[in-house]
C-alpha cells in the first residue's frame, strides 16, 4: 500500500540546515494501523506530508500501490491523492465558509463523483453530524469539526489515511471517537499512518514506532525496511 524507501528531507532555516527526515523507511499494507510517536519537531509531520505526496523528499522514494509518487506528473499525483489518500489534521483545516455537508463534499471537486452526495450523507450520519449538516465550522464543537474532517477524508473511499495529530485538540471522549474510527477504517481493509505525540492515541494502532531527530529506530538507510506485521508498542 505505502512504502517509504530511505527518504530524507533537509530544510534550510535561519540557523542553518535542519535534517527533518534522515533515511526513513517503512512499509504499510492494507489493514495496517501504524502510529509514529515523537516529540514536536522530530519530523513526524514532514514524514506524513512526504508520504502524502505533498512534500518531495530530497532522497528516497515514496511508493503508493507500487507507483512512485514523485516520479509521476503533478496531475497524476493530485489524482492519486484524491482517489487513494485521506488526510486528517490536528487543526482540521475545514473550509470556513462551507457547511459541514459541503466540507465533506469538498474532495468531490477533484473527482466529480456522481454518488458524492449520497456518500457524504452516509458519512455525516455515521459520524453523528446529521443535525449539524448545514452548520459552518465556526458553529461546531472541536470534536464535531474533527469528525467532519474525518468524514471528508473518507468521502472518496481512500485506501490510506494519513492522520497528523488528529486528537491533539480534542477532549479524551472525542479523541477516542476519532481513533476508533481510524481503527475501524484499518480493520475494514484500509491503511492508517498516524503521527502523534500522545501515547494514548498510539495505543489504538496495531503498531507504534517512536521517532527522534528525523529517524525511525531500526529503519536507517542501511537496515532493511521493517514489515509492520506485529504490534510494537513502545
Amino acid at each position, binding site marked *: 500500500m505505502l512504502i517509504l524507501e530511505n527518504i530524507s528531507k533537509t530544510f534550510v532555516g535561519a540557523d542553518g540546515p535542519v535534517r527533518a527526515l534522515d533515511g526513513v523507511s517503512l512499509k504499510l499494507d492494507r489493514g495496517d494501523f501504524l502510529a509514529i510517536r515523537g516529540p514536536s519537531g522530530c519530523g513526524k509531520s514532514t514524514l506524513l506530508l512526504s508520504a502524502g505526496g*505533498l512534500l518531495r523528499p530530497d532522497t528516497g522514494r515514496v511508493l503508493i500501490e507500487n507507483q512512485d509518487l514523485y516520479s509521476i506528473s503533478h496531475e497524476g499525483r493530485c489524482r492519486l*491523492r484524491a482517489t487513494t489518500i485521506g488526510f486528517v489534521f490536528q487543526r482540521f*483545516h475545514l*473550509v470556513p465558509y462551507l457547511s459541514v455537508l459541503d466540507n465533506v463534499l469538498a474532495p468531490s471537486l477533484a473527482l466529480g463523483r456522481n454518488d458524492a452526495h449520497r456518500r457524504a450523507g452516509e458519512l455525516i450520519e455515521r459520524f453523528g453530524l446529521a443535525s449539524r449538516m448545514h452548520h459552518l465550522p465556526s458553529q461546531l464543537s472541536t470534536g464535531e469539526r474533527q469528525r467532519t474532517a474525518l468524514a471528508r477524508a473518507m468521502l472518496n473511499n481512500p485506501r490510506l489515511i494519513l492522520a497528523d495529530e488528529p486528537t491533539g485538540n480534542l477532549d479524551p471522549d472525542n479523541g477516542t471517537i476519532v481513533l476508533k474510527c481510524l481503527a475501524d477504517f484499518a480493520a475494514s481493509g484500509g491503511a492508517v499512518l498516524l503521527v502523534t505525540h500522545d501515547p494514548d492515541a498510539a495505543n489504538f494502532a496495531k503498531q507504534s514506532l517512536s521517532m527522534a531527530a528525523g529517524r525511525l529506530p531500526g529503519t536507517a538507510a542501511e537496515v532493511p525496511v521493517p514489515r509492520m506485521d506485529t504490534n510494537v508498542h513502545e
Partner: protein
Amino acid sequence: MRISRLILQEIRYRKLNFALGTLSVIVAVGSAVGLLAALRQHDSQTQKIINRRREASEGLMRQNEEEYRKIGVAMGFNMVILHKDQSVADFYANNVAGTDMDENWGKKIADAKLTSVNHVTPVLQKRIRWEQYNRDIFLTGAKVAYMQGGGSIIRKPILQQLSPGEMILGHELQRLTGAKEGDRLSLLGRQFTVKGFKPGGYNKDDVTAWVSLADAQEMLGRPGKINGIFALECTNCGPEAFEIVRREIAAILPDAQIVEFTQLATARSNARRQAAAMTKAAGEQEIQHRQRIGQEQRRLASILIPLILVACGLWIAFLTFSNARDRGSEIGILRAIGVRSVQILGVFLAKAALMGIVGAAVGYMAGMVSSTLLRGGSGVLIERDWLICSLVGAPVLAVLAASAPAILAALRDPAVLLRED
C-alpha cells in the same frame, strides 16, 4: 460539489473583499463611461448649437434675400440695359435713352437663361406732351414677357402685362386726369382703357403712362425698337451681383451697357448681409470655444481613464493577493485532497471575473445616469457598444489584474500552507 458553489459561498462569506473589488470596478467603469458620455453629450450639444446657428444664419440670409426681392419689386427695377452708344449722362439728364436697340435683345437675354437677372422687361420710353392736360409725361411701352432671366421660378411681375389699348397711369397722372379704372382716355390721338394705377413713388414713374410695347412703338413710329431693358438683378448673388450681371450680359449682348440706378435695396441688403455675417462669426466663435473645451475634456479623459483603470487593476490585484493569503489553509487542504492547482487558479480568476461583470453592469448604469444628471438631461440612453465593451473589458481587466496573485496562490506549496497554519 462544483467549483462555482465554492466561489459563491466564499463570496458570501467574505463579502467585504468582493464588495471592495466590485466597487473599484464600478468606480473605474462608471468614471470611464461617465466621462465618455459627458464628452459625447458635449459633442452632441455642440453639434446642436452648430445646427441651430447654421439654421439661424441661413434663415437670416433667406429672410434678407426675400426682403431684398420684395424691396426690389416694390421699388421697381434696379437696373437698365442700354445700347452702349447711349450717353449715360444724357440718360440721366433726360430720364430716357435716345439710342434704340432691337426689340429681340430682351428675348436674347431670356433665352440665355441667366440666373443673375430677373424681370427682364424691354421698354420703349419717350418724354411726350399730353396736350389734353398740358403736361409733359413719360410714355413707356413695356413688354412683360420675360419674367425670369433664366430660372424656372415664376414670380409676380413688377409691371402688369398690358394688351394693346390698355393703359396704367402713374400716381400723379391719376390725380391729374381724375381717371378711374375702366375710364377711356386719349393720348397722342389713340384711345386707351385705364387698367390701373401705380402707387406714388416720388420718381418719374409718378408721371408715366404705361402702355403695351406694341402701342408705344406705333405711337412713336419706332416699330421693332426699344431703348431700354429694365431688369432686377438677382437677389442672392451678394455684393458682386452687379459685376456678375455685367459680365453675363456682355457675353450675350456685346453692344449693351448696364446702368444700376437703384442703390437703396442693395445698401439694405448689404447691411443685412453684414449683420448675418457677424451673427455667423459670433456663432462660430462660440462653437470654436466649445470645441476647444471638448478637446481639453478629451485630453483629460485620455489621461484620467487609463489612470483609473490602472488603479482599479492594482486594487484588484491587491485584494486578490490579500484574499489568497487569507485562504492559505484552505488552498493547502484543497490541494491535499486532490484539487488541482489549475482549479485553484480558476477559483480566484472566476471570482475576479465576477467582480468585473457585476462592477461593469452597475458601473455602466451609474456612469450613464450620473453623466445625464450632471448635464441636467433626462432619459438615460443605452449605448449598446459601450455596454458590451464594459461587460467584456471589465472582467478581462479584473482577470488580468488578479492573474499574478492567483497564479502565485495556485502554485503555493501545500505542505508549507498546511504547516503554516
